[in-house]
């Protein structure tokens, strides 16, 4: 098959797997996992510098920026104003004008507040940001985000960190069918098959953090996710068969050796 890259706004990626930088056992394991995943884009959070505990190992020092693009998020923001503020600060660190926009609506589910998300998307697009909003698996909200200028839409497969897999496959198919921007399934992946399913549904990419970072062996899981995303994508492009209710024999029906029961009755006894 021809080369198959993912283009979001003005950037093209060979890998369709976007990975987080949180919750790893160490920076070293994170760096190894990033390498094993083949990722070319990782998310980071914007937080106050810890003034009491200076000299901690810098996160950026553990990200290979020659291969990996850094996508700041607005995690932990519960209003449009806070998310806009975090996005502006993230941009000022000076790596890019991209933002993974999160406006959280509820602490227990971490589901997005889509009204505030839409509002923040409009403001940030006007300010020249490349906005990748984390949203519900809701085709209408995804369409409105696209109309507001989002560079991609990132519907959740399941709650963040839940590992439940893609909960509403039908909505994902509808979102993919109507979207004219890339669809990145963000959150909810638990294991490799979930990532493969996301890609088989037609997602342009998958974003995950916990599934890799909290696996017993994050580096091995990162490799599993790389293979799953590639396999799922290839299967999607290859075009799967239709589902059917009954069997359809794989071997020809003609030219079969006569059934044993027939042989026995015509020979009148046990064949030698």
């Amino acid at each position: 098959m021809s080369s198959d890259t993912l283009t979001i706004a003005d950037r093209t990626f060979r890998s369709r797997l976007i990975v987080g930088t949180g919750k790893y056992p160490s920076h070293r394991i994170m760096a190894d996992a990033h390498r094993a995943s083949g990722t070319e884009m990782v998310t980071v959070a914007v937080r106050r510098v810890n003034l009491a505990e200076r000299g901690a190992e810098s996160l950026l020092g553990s990200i290979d920026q020659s291969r990996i693009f850094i996508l700041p998020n607005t995690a932990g923001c519960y209003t449009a104003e806070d998310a806009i503020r975090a996005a502006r600060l993230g941009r000022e660190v000076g790596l890019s004008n991209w933002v993974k926009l999160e406006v959280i609506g509820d602490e227990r589910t971490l589901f997005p507040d889509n009204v505030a998300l839409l509002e923040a998307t409009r403001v940030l697009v006007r300010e020249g940001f490349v906005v990748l909003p984390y949203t519900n698996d809701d085709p209408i909200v995804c369409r409105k985000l696209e109309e507001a200028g989002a560079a991609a839409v990132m519907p959740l497969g399941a709650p963040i960190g839940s590992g439940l897999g893609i909960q509403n496959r039908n909505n994902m198919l509808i979102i993919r069918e109507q979207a004219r921007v890339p669809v990145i399934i963000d959150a909810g992946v638990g294991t490799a098959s979930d990532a493969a399913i996301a890609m088989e549904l037609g997602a342009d990419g998958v974003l995950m953090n916990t599934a890799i970072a909290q696996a017993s062996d994050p580096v091995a899981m990162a490799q599993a996710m790389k293979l799953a995303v590639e396999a799922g994508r290839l299967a999607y492009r290859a075009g799967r068969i239709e589902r059917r209710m009954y069997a359809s024999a794989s071997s020809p029906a003609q030219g079969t050796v006569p059934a044993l029961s027939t042989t026995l009755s015509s020979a009148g006894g046990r064949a030698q």
Partner: protein
Amino acid sequence: MTIRVNGEPQEIAGPITISTLLEDLKIDPRLVAVEHNLIVVKRAQYGAVTINEGDEIEIVNFVGGG
């Protein structure tokens, strides 16, 4: 005089620039972003913006996240 840095009160001798504050705190300006009274300050302006009594400074960096 007292200013607030990342929500904590901090005593400084007199008005200082953001550059000087970062230097005093041993923070590499290339790894952070700074807000002065809720306004994001461009890195090129760190030497020009003066912090006065009662000002609120936020200094942020990137940490692990999803």
